[in-house]
């Protein structure tokens, strides 16, 4: 039996090769095809005549694309900082063994199980001045209460931030909590022996020692930012005006609604490039640690 297995030693390679072939064709193949399309003037139907980087010039003179990129940066910064801070705070509270820890953990983890569409719809309802929070508080008797960010072009983006944080804080909490639970008990004892105040212990000893954990969170959140689509569709549909447009929505709109395959492909490739650039520091530090 075992010699038979040994003779069949190449079998696992074949299994894995099939998997790699699928990845190669559908993942990298699609990327290559998209890149090819971005070099053409394709509209509804692919055209195969290469015109160079025209679509990229068009893209970067397109007002809507530029606003999308700016929005992504604003959303990204606030969303990532907010989620990390809030999720970490929750993890620390859970780690300090506040009462009813499992209750809170469940509460904060639930949003993650809810699809972004439902999250978006709920928050839209909650933040809509005529049906949600504002209407409710005015109904109680505070007639002048105003919370209409959802309908204000300069503020709508922050409602996305709030909903995003609500959705993802639980994820950061469980990841950071797992990291905190892995901290050697002796380290905590040493911290107590030295009389280090709790907040300094976390900021200067514990979290710096958990860099890989934090980096994982950042990478996860970053990919969430770059491919952010569902939440916008459910909450603002890019509005009011184009004030909450984002690159992923731009690409989808140009693929399907505006049938401009070439420009949409150029936008997709730019998003891919952006992802790679953003992940660069992570890969770099990983690489440096290995060698």
């Amino acid at each position: 039996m075992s010699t038979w297995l040994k003779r069949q030693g190449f079998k696992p390679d074949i299994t894995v090769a099939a998997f790699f072939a699928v990845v190669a064709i559908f993942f990298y193949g699609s990327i290559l095809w998209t890149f090819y399309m971005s070099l053409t003037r394709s509209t509804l139907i692919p055209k195969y005549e290469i015109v160079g980087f025209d679509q990229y010039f068009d893209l970067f003179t397109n007002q809507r694309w530029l606003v999308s990129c700016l929005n992504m940066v604003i959303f990204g910064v606030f969303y990532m900082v907010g989620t990390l801070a809030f999720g970490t705070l929750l993890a620390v509270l859970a780690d300090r063994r506040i009462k009813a820890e499992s209750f809170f953990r469940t509460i904060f983890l639930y949003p993650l199980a809810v699809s972004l569409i439902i999250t978006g719809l709920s928050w839209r309802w909650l933040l809509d001045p005529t049906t949600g929070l504002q209407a409710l508080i005015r109904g109680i008797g505070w007639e002048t209460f105003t919370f209409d960010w959802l309908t204000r072009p300069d503020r709508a983006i922050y409602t996305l931030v709030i909903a995003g944080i609500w959705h993802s804080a639980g994820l950061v909490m469980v990841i950071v909590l797992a990291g905190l639970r892995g901290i050697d008990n002796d380290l905590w004892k040493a911290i107590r022996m030295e009389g280090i105040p709790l907040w300094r212990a976390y900021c200067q000893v514990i979290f710096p020692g958990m860099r890989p954990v934090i980096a994982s969170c950042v990478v996860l959140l970053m990919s969430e930012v770059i491919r952010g689509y569902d939440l916008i569709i459910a909450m603002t549909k890019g509005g009011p005006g184009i004030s909450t447009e984002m690159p992923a929505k731009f690409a989808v709109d140009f693929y399907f609604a505006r049938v401009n395959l070439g420009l949409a492909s150029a936008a997709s490739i730019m998003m891919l490039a952006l992802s790679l650039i953003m992940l660069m520091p992570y890969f770099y530090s990983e690489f440096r640690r290995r060698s």
Partner: protein
Amino acid sequence: MSSISLRQIKKSFGALTILHSVDMEIDKGEFIVILGPSGCGKSTLLNVIAGLDACDEGQIVIEGKDVSGLEPSERGLAMVFQSYALFPAMTVRRNLSFGMEIAGTPKATVVEKVAWVAKLLQIEALLDRKPAQLSGGQRQRVAIGRALVRSSSICLFDEPLSNLDAKLRAETRVELKQLHETLGSTMIYVTHDQIEAMTMADRVAVMHKGKVEQFAHPQSIYEKPASLFVAGFVGSPAMNFIDGRLDGSGRFLTGDIAIGTDAYAFEERQPSGEIVLGIRCEDVTVVDRGAPESIPASLAFTELLGADALGWFDCLGKRLSVRLGIKAARSMRKEVGLRFDMSKASLFSRASERRL
């Protein structure tokens, strides 16, 4: 004046009592080793002394001051942990200085102390490295350094050498002992390694199931173990035990053999009843079969240990170890007699398991 006194320390985790009334008086500058098998409560006792665990009952007095209610950092102690517990993201230098920084020590003093301890422990070349870039032995030095810069007169160690390989452990053991002599501070050192206990300690506290069974100089722990547990735990190979009775005229009876106990210094008058005789392998001599005051035995096998050898004999239904010279071991006959040196034996009551 004693440096530390522990008065009737009790500690339980839930229904499980870990420490049953521990009392200890530790003098200034002593090197105390707490020795015991795994799970006997050594770390718990050390944590209670340090204040990392609160004790349920009892009092801890350090240099004349009751510290039972104080935070660990206020007790004037330093501690070294088994897993080193260095601050992972800080350089060695900062690991050493961080505690002082927290305590608000002036900058110049901090620099001076770090330099002093780095020189003392020969870690000057490592000061700018992170803990992850150090070997186990180097990490242990840094951990010891971090404890020393606290300049407390009392230092606690919880199995600091157990993660090191055998050679490094032996070297560090010697260095720690020298360090103790240089600094003259009181040290309490927890281990389950009896060689560490025997070689380093001024006094050893042998713990068993949350009680201190004996607290004495290592040599008297070896020669005059206070209980059956201590006798069996300390020494390698383990002490030989033979069950028997003590008759009215003070003879030890086992099977159809009687051994006189005139040479034995009893701690209490006229004991009798069921007892256990304990004898170390080096206190047994091999004589001819049938010689007076000897017990018939037959050789099972011998082990050569380099400097000397061990002979294992079947005798009175037990297997006893006897330390032999290499020559004697090679030419050992099968059927012999064994004679015990009763002045060096230990007798224990079967009921109380205490020394008689």
